[in-house]
């Protein structure tokens, strides 16, 4: 609060100076235009201009209240004669601030008189009693001399009104009677009046800037709080309640925040450390129930470099963390999937070498079995590596197609023929229901790969029944849809959409049906590169699945 008041005073003072200077130069110009000006007025204006110029030069860019008051009061000596110049402010908390600059040596009584006159005036304006309990008084300038017989015999009080609100009182006092007439009062009145207008404008700017800042903080996705040196919450945005899952509608307190983080991080110690060491602290992993947060605690400094508060930014990193975990799981799974065929190759070749070296009549059938194992394992691994490379190409957008006119039905029949032996092992029939011929522009190798993937999956996930491949042109949409329908284990509704995402298959627990699920990711890449669409339909678990993909008719 005091800081706010002081800041307002700062602005008032600066504004007094600046606006007075503007006022003076305006008056000067006016003077230059009007030769009819009275010589007395001319003298006044020249004085004013000189004083205000001096004031503005001396103040420079300082916003230090004490310094500005000093400069103004000391400079006023050139403009007005007085023994003391004083300033009185009634703060919002009811406390009275009284500052007095002594020019000519006066006694304590003189100061008391000034104070009394100002209080009376203040009370008259506000039409209420002002308590002087806890009055913040400071007297600067000349030494007080109690031998002085000076009494306040002439003075005037000038209210400083900003935005139609009384913010303070300026008093000029002298022991000389009749010191101040209309002339002197009008000088000071003109200055304060101009100052008030300028300060009002400055306040508007300040309010609007504060509003903008508040809007920025309010709309941030990150939670932000500011804590003062008394560990009180001074600023927070609404997001913080969501992030920390604080449900109540009461104003937030530091207690709520510390409570929400209890056991995860000692926020108070961190804030104290940040303030004490004057440095930004980062707490990267604060794990709440289902959230991961990253906290940044920074000291807030005033223009003089003194730490006056600390801000804490709560950055929700849950998504990043989940992604990182999925990626790690993917890598772990990939390593596992690559190690499996490698293990088979290694062990098979070892036993083959051993048997051959033993030279005890090697059984050719046994050798063939082992070599077949090696071949199968190598093919599995090659398929995996190729899928990985394809996924990388798709993700990098470097997937190139060789599009020409081909018969799609011929390709379907070709693929069905390739997969029939595998299907027959499980007593599954592959039925192709298509027109005899269907010419289309597409990449024969890549679409063949999609069909192969879908057929291989259908066989893998079906234990009994049949697999049906059909082709349905849609003249209206200018697409042709190819469906591979099985009578297998089916897919639950919630899993349907995620079947084609890179990490999905790997997360399901069923490793009976070996596979990384990359085949579907690659298939989607191929179909989408053609400008088509791929999707799955299933009535539910154990009710079979139909994988469809459409290609544009071009």
């Amino acid at each position, binding site marked *: 609060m005091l800081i706010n008041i002081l800041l307002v005073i700062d602005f008032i003072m600066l504004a007094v100076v600046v606006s007075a200077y503007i006022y003076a130069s305006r008056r000067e110009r006016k003077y230059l235009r009007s030769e009819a000006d009275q010589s007395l007025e001319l003298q006044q204006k020249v004085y004013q201009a000189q004083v205000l110029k001096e004031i503005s030069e001396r103040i420079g860019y300082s916003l230090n209240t004490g310094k500005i008051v000093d400069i103004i009061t000391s400079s006023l000596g050139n403009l007005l004669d007085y023994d003391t110049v004083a300033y009185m402010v009634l703060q919002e908390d009811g406390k009275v601030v009284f500052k007095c600059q002594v020019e000519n040596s006066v006694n304590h009584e003189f100061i008391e008189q000034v104070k009394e006159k100002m209080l009376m005036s203040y009370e008259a304006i506000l039409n209420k009693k002002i308590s002087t309990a806890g009055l913040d008084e400071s007297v600067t300038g000349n030494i007080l001399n109690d031998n002085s017989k000076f009494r306040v015999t002439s003075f005037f009080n000038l209210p400083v009104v900003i935005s139609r609100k009384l913010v303070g009182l300026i008093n000029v006092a002298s022991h000389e009677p009749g010191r101040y007439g209309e002339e002197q009062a009008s000088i000071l009145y003109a200055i304060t009046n101009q100052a008030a207008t300028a300060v009002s404008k400055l306040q508007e700017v300040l309010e609007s800037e504060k509003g903008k800042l508040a809007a920025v903080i309010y709309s941030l996705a990150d939670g932000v709080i500011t804590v003062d040196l008394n560990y009180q919450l001074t600023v927070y945005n609404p997001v913080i309640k969501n992030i920390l899952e604080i449900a109540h509608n009461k104003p937030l307190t530091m207690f709520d925040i510390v409570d929400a983080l209890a056991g995860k991080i000692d926020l108070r110690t961190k804030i104290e450390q940040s303030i004490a060491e004057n440095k930004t602290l980062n707490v990267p992993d604060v794990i709440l129930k289902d959230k991961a947060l990253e906290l940044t605690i920074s000291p807030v400094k005033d223009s003089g470099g003194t730490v006056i508060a600390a801000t804490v930014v709560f950055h929700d990193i849950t998504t990043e963390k989940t992604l990182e975990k999925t990626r790690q799981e993917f890598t772990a799974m990939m390593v596992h999937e690559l190690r499996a065929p490698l293990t088979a190759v*290694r062990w098979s070749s070892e036993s083959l070498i051993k048997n051959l070296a033993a030279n005890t009549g090697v059984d050719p059938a046994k050798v063939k079995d082992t070599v077949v194992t090696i071949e199968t394992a190598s093919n599995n691994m090659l398929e995996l590596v190729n899928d990985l490379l394809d996924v990388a190409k798709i993700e990098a957008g470097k997937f190139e197609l060789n599009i020409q006119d081909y018969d799609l039905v011929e390709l379907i029949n070709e693929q069905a023929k390739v997969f029939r032996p595998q299907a027959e092992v499980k007593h599954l029939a592959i039925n192709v229901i298509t027109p005899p011929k269907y010419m289309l522009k597409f990449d024969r190798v890549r679409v063949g790969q999609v069909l192969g993937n879908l057929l291989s999956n259908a066989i893998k996930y079906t234990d009994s029944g049949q697999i049906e491949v059909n082709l349905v042109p849609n003249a209206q949409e200018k697409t042709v849809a190819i469906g591979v329908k099985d009578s297998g284990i089916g897919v639950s509704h919630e899993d349907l959409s995620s079947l084609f995402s890179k990490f999905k298959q790997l997360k399901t627990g069923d490793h009976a049906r070996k596979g990384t699920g990359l085949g579907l990711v690659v298939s989607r890449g191929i179909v989408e590169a053609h400008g088509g669409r791929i999707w799955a339909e299933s009535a539910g678990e154990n009710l079979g699945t139909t994988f469809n993909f459409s290609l544009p008719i071009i």
Partner: protein
Amino acid sequence: MTKILAAEDDKLISGSLCDALKSAGYEPTPAYDGEEAVAKAKEIKPDLILLDIMMPKLDGISVLWELKADPNTAKIPVIVLTNIGDVETISKIVEAGAVDYLLKSDQSVDDIIQKVKDVLARNVQLT
């Protein structure tokens, strides 16, 4: 003859493993998923179990828990053969009571046979 249960879902790996065990003079029985592994362990009461972790129906760690929970199978030494080498899994394996774990792709078949021999010898001494 010393009976060894080889629980491994990958048919290629299982094949090579069983071949090697046979050549070394053991009597291997393959199991291709976790449930089969538990059932076969109870049925044939092997002298040692080689157990994979990532298996369908029931994973290797759950198999270990079930074996350790049944007094008939609790004392059978289990060597875990896995291709998952993360610390979390390994600590779970140790906690569940496996005598040892080996990373499949890091081992030659001979290494595994040697490990089987060592564990069986140690077990004989203990009992």
